[in-house]
């Protein structure tokens, strides 16, 4: 459904550094995603930017994306919920959230004047279509991201994602219920390409790649498992880049890159690999997202390119 006139692949002549702009001119950060204009290609990754963080980084993000919401409230997993790993972290939050109704009451806190995306998760295709139906009716919601890949919920998204057939089923149900709102399918790294193809077949407007990697932290001193959860952060960037790259070759819908983005150069790498927009997750905990945008702008200034010129240009 949503194939923007995207991916201005760089023609060989352009690659060499043509289209240089006059020094000092502003850079063009705009990208188009599913018919929406994002004034920057940065989007918060679901579950990593609370409303305070979103408000504190006003101007940085081209769209806003709060934590995944489920039909009913969820208390989440018992602590410990975090572990630090080399160049990364593991979390096992367990989708703590107040449920879709309470969430919708507080939605205005996320309104910063840019398109608002909402992330949803359920245990059955019915849950997803219920959630999409609820959001379809609300004009504030501009797109819906289906979290099909949360590794921290025992019966949940993860299993949809593991089997392309169920990705297709869930996405199709969600698209139908969303009543024309773009539906994004967020997939795990495992089976990303098949999942992206299934999502495309089922009418997804875009795919988000990737969610955290299934991971474990062991506490050697106590000789016990500290945490089973999802690995995020710079450690997983090379895996995420690979998924984006392979999916770009396999599907025609746009890709939101996600996983370990922590610098302006990382943003460029994801776009070159095929992402139309890039999500910032755990890096937001350790850096100011405005710095990441500043670095990315610097990259565009040096190369003389517009943000959208980068999309898929490394292929």
């Amino acid at each position, binding site marked *: 459904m949503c194939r923007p006139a995207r991916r201005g692949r760089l023609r060989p002549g352009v690659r060499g550094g043509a289209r240089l702009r006059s020094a000092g001119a502003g850079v063009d950060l705009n990208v188009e995603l599913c018919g929406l204009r994002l004034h920057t290609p940065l989007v918060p990754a679901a579950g990593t930017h*609370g409303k305070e*963080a979103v408000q*504190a980084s006003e101007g940085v993000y081209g769209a806003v994306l709060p934590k995944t919401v489920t039909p009913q409230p969820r208390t989440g997993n018992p602590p410990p919920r975090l572990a630090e790993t080399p160049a990364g972290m593991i979390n096992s*939050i367990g989708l*703590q959230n107040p449920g879709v109704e309470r969430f919708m009451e507080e939605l205005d806190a996320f309104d910063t004047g840019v398109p608002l995306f909402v992330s949803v998760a359920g245990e059955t295709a019915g849950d997803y279509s219920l959630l999409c139906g609820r959001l379809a009716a609300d004009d504030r919601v501009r797109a819906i991201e289906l979290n099909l890949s949360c590794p921290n919920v025992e019966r949940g998204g993860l299993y949809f994602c593991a089997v392309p057939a169920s990705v297709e089923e869930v996405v199709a149900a969600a698209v139908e219920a969303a009543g024309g709102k773009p539906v994004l399918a967020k997939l795990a790294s495992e089976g990303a390409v098949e999942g992206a193809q299934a999502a495309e077949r089922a009418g997804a407007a875009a795919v988000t790649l990737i969610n955290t990697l299934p991971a474990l932290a062991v506490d050697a001193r106590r000789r016990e498992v500290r945490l089973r959860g999802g690995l995020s952060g710079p450690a997983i960037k090379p895996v995420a880049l690979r998924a984006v790259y392979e999916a770009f070759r396999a599907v025609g819908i746009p890709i939101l890159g996600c996983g370990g983005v922590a610098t302006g150069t990382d943003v460029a790498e994801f776009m070159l690999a095929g992402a139309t927009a890039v999500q910032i997750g755990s890096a937001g905990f350790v*850096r100011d997202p405005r710095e990441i945008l500043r670095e990315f702008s610097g990259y565009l200034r040096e190369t003389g390119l517009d943000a959208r010129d980068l999309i898929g240009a490394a292929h």
Partner: protein
Amino acid sequence: MRFHRVRVESRERLGSYRVLRYPWEGDVEPGQFVLIRAASQRTSFDPFLARPFSVYDLRGGVMSVLLEVRGRGTRLIASSEEIEVSAPHGRGYRPDVPAGRVALIAREGKVAPLRLLYRRLQERGVDHDIFLQLAAAQVPILRDFPGARVVDDFGDLSGYAAVYASGPGAVPPGIPCQVAVEEMMACGEGSCYGCAVPLAGGGYARACVEGPVFEARELAWI
């Protein structure tokens, strides 16, 4: 999270503690915390996260934190000339105390949040006693807590109008008690839900936003 690069103005050892001081404009409540990392960490993502520390004191534009070296993060911070710090975060001790003498108690050497609290109570003329559970190497910290008593356990606190505690543990029933907890943190600003503290009524609160100071009776494990 927004970090500010500052130069460590002074560094002092008090037994196993170190006091780091850096310039800071702005205000703070006793019990709030800051996130800190070595400035060199910015060009390296291992370790990945910044580390939370209670505000130890703030006077005349100088912030101090009291740290003990535990692992890599604290070792790096302790030896860095330049550090990156967040603004103070979280909910500190609430000053709305009943009239009467109050007790400040620190469990297992977690004295840091009590320093600014005790200075503020003093300024406001609130009568108080300070009880500190310390390891031998921590005793030099008494310099910063004049009149404090070193104890093994806290005995009977039931005569006090309120207890301000740092570090988890049982509290006397019936006395209003506020307690500062330490939970591992990632974002430190309410985004990640990683610092969950179980609530008496079920569910979890976030140590970084609803805490780190809680009413003791609100928590499930006190």
